[in-house]
């Protein structure tokens, strides 16, 4: 190994950093995304990477993975300067990625996925399946997790997908692991398992880049944090030397009040808008009843699999009700499909914006207008001028940051994509808005904007149902919280009866 290490002494156990990125710059067209970023991960370090929407986190990581090529700057892996021209180069250098959108083939087994393209062969031709299974089992043993390598990935829960992803990277001898929001789809105990695993990997000398918006996690597992803002390195600090307020401020660029609960005046004679009465569908929705008043925000809390999402799907007519009824303004409504629900002035902001919320290849404008086509018709034809006006007004009203609404929505950042989904639905002027994980994978700045938006909607007299696995967020907006367990409403709590996140956590866990 040629030692070409540069000046400033790294804060690390061994003196050569596992990853050293110096003065990395990258621009798309004329849009500068990274302007001379320094980033460094020591051997066996968990290094958190944070930053707002468009701060350049994902671009920096894509350069490290060989997906994008840098315009200028130097990358050194274990002190050796490297040029990645493809993902394969990065893999060969020991960079592994745990994808946010999992990169596994559901129809193959765990072992087949782990050794995809690196299958152990007999005579260079035939795959030695048994050896692959044995090797996979060994990897899992090292990781101290219990997964059957012969199981079909599609039959496993999301938590196992992630573990399989990690095992895949391990099997390819990754020394540096990039984890992007790894706990986004995990329940609390699953997340805890993951943190333990991260600890073990770290002890084994693996370096981890940990991208997360959740402060609590970052403090729990990371050694240092680097915050990017506007394509520049804002700070790199040991977590023992930095306060959460400072980090949040660094990400948002200003103090935020968004996450604090703001008591709203709900004293006026409340008008019942929506009533759910004994809703039952499958095993995930069991005899659920609740009422929702005009101007009210209800939070739905519960672990993964508690039926939160399924309840939302029933209310919006995607899943069929087996029994029970839904009333709007006291009138029974038939929500046998989403069209009926829309007619009854319900709207659902779905959980997975990429799969369920957006047509990614279509333009921002076309996506915004999709539920509103009736509004921009003149006779039989669509009036493009009117459409453009309506789309522009929505873009403005919801502060979507978009240079050209005629370009595909897939080019926007996650936060802005989410705003497009919300704007699209609010254009239909719904009375009841159901939002399933409205801030998942969104930076804190946008999160605050979305929470403010939710409060404003309630002020305007709409009723909102918010589903979220982030308790801080639920507590920030909800007037009441319904706690679901095994498909049934376990408890209904008024906001003022919940002291803090911890007590909500206890209520959800049922302890």
């Amino acid at each position, binding site marked *: 190994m040629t030692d070409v290490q540069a000046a400033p002494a790294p804060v690390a156990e061994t003196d050569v950093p596992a990853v050293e990125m110096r003065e990395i710059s990258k621009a798309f*067209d*004329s*849009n500068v995304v990274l302007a001379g970023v320094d980033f460094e991960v020591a051997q066996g370090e968990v290094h958190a990477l944070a930053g707002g929407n468009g701060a350049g986190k994902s671009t920096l990581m894509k350069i490290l993975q060989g997906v994008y090529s840098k315009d200028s700057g130097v990358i050194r892996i274990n002190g050796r300067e490297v040029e990645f021209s493809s993902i394969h180069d990065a893999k060969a250098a020991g960079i592994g990625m745990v994808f946010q959108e999992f990169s596994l083939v559901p129809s193959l087994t765990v072992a087949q996925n782990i050794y995809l393209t690196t299958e152990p062969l007999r005579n260079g031709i035939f795959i030695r399946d048994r050896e692959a299974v044995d090797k996979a089992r060994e990897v899992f043993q090292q990781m101290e997790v219990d997964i059957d390598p012969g199981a079909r990935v599609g039959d496993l829960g999301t938590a196992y997908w992630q573990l399989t992803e990690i095992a895949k990277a391990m099997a390819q001898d990754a020394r540096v692991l990039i984890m992007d929001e790894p706990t986004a789809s995990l329940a609390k105990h699953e997340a805890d398992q993951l943190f333990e695993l991260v600890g073990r990997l770290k002890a084994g000398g693996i370096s981890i880049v940990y991208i997360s918006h959740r402060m609590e996690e970052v403090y729990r597992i990371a050694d240092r944090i680097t915050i990017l803002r506007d394509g520049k390195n804002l700070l790199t600090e040991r977590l023992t030397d930095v306060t959460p307020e400072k980090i949040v401020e660094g990400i948002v660029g200003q103090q935020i009040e968004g996450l604090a609960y703001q008591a709203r005046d709900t004293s006026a004679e409340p008008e019942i808008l929506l009533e759910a009465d004994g809703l039952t569908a499958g095993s995930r929705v069991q005899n659920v009843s609740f009422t929702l008043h005009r101007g009210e925000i209800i939070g739905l809390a519960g672990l993964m699999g508690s039926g939160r999402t399924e309840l939302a799907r029933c209310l*919006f007519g*995607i899943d069929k009700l087996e029994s029970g009824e839904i009333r709007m303004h006291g009138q029974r409504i038939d929500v046998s*499909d*989403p*069209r009926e*629900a*829309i007619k009854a002035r319900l709207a*659902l902001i*779905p959980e997975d914006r990429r*799969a*369920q*919320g*957006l*047509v*990614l*290849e*279509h*333009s921002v*404008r*076309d996506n915004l*207008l*999709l*539920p509103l*086509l*009736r509004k921009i*018709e003149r006779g*039989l*034809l*669509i009036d*493009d001028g009117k*459409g*453009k006006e309506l789309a522009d007004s929505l873009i403005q009203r919801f502060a979507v940051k978009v*240079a*050209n*609404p*005629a370009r*595909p929505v897939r080019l926007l950042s996650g936060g802005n994509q989410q705003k497009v989904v919300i704007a*699209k639905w609010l254009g239909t002027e719904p009375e009841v808005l159901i939002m399933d994980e409205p801030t998942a994978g969104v930076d804190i700045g946008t999160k605050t904007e979305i929470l403010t938006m939710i409060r404003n909607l309630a002020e305007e007299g709409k009723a909102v149902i918010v589903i979220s696995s982030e308790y801080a967020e639920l507590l920030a907006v909800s007037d009441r919280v319904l706690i679901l367990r095994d498909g049934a409403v376990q408890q209904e709590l008024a906001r003022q009866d919940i002291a803090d996140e911890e007590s909500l956590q206890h209520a959800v866990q049922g302890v």
Partner: protein
Amino acid sequence: MTQTTKPATEGGGAVAVERRSRFATLDWRRYVIYIGFVVIFIFFAILLGNQGFLSPNNLLNILRQTATITVIAVGMTYVISCAEIDLSVGSVAGLASVVTAMAVANWGVVAGVIVGLLVGVVVGSINGGLVAGLGIPSFLVTLGMLGIAFGLAQWITGSAPQPILSYAYNLAFGSGNLGPFPGLVVWMAIFVAVGAIVLSKTRFGRQVLATGGNRMAAEFTGINTKRIKFEVLLISGTVAAFAGMLYAGRLQSGRFQWGQGDELSAIAAVILGGTSLFGGSGTVIGTLFGALLIGLINNGLILAGLDASQQQVIRGVIIILAVALARKK
């Protein structure tokens, strides 16, 4: 994809720069079919100018020969934009041609037209019903239907051609002229115009594109994606039946072989025109030029004296080349 909306005109340096560099790097790929059309046209014009390539008669001939494929391809554009496929169109055209011919002979022109279209409506409904209702892949349903329609057409006619003696029918459907324009070309223009407007300018068109682009998101948005899938297959079947009636009018007879293999030419025209094979984007005008390009190549190669086998090879090469050039990086 095809932008169904015009680019934004609002100011802002970043936006302008962004757009300019996009033209420089990417945009020509979207127009490759038009560029290819012009280039090949000029190529033939120079090479074959003195062999009558540029004579009005020859140019009209190209249009005439392309007309029926274009009509079928207009319907196919909807199906492919919606991320489905219809392999039965060629045999539906053949079946419609014989049914129309028999109905004209027995019950007159009006009945013939109605019954002919009905063939398309029925076959399209069956295709659509099986795909949308039962969720069977359209590739399989329409592959089956290809055989059924072809077999039926052969069976009910005993493989014999069915002459159409009605002067009025033949005049209206393909043999006549409207002013200087062959009737076939007029029909083609009507189908292209209506098809283009409906796909890019109506709610239905947008819903077809959204369903093809991301069915789940479309469903969550309240679009009845089953109905849309049913409707595109219904359209494609009906339009194919109309194309069969044009065959019958032009050739003054119905025959089970009419339209045989047209499904592949139509798919080629649609894909050449820039419609995504995976759904979500589609352009009828592109399809027209895709079909014209194929017609142009056929005509040029014939004039150049190549025989049918050589034509096929060269046509195949050009299609692959065009699609490769249009491919996104």
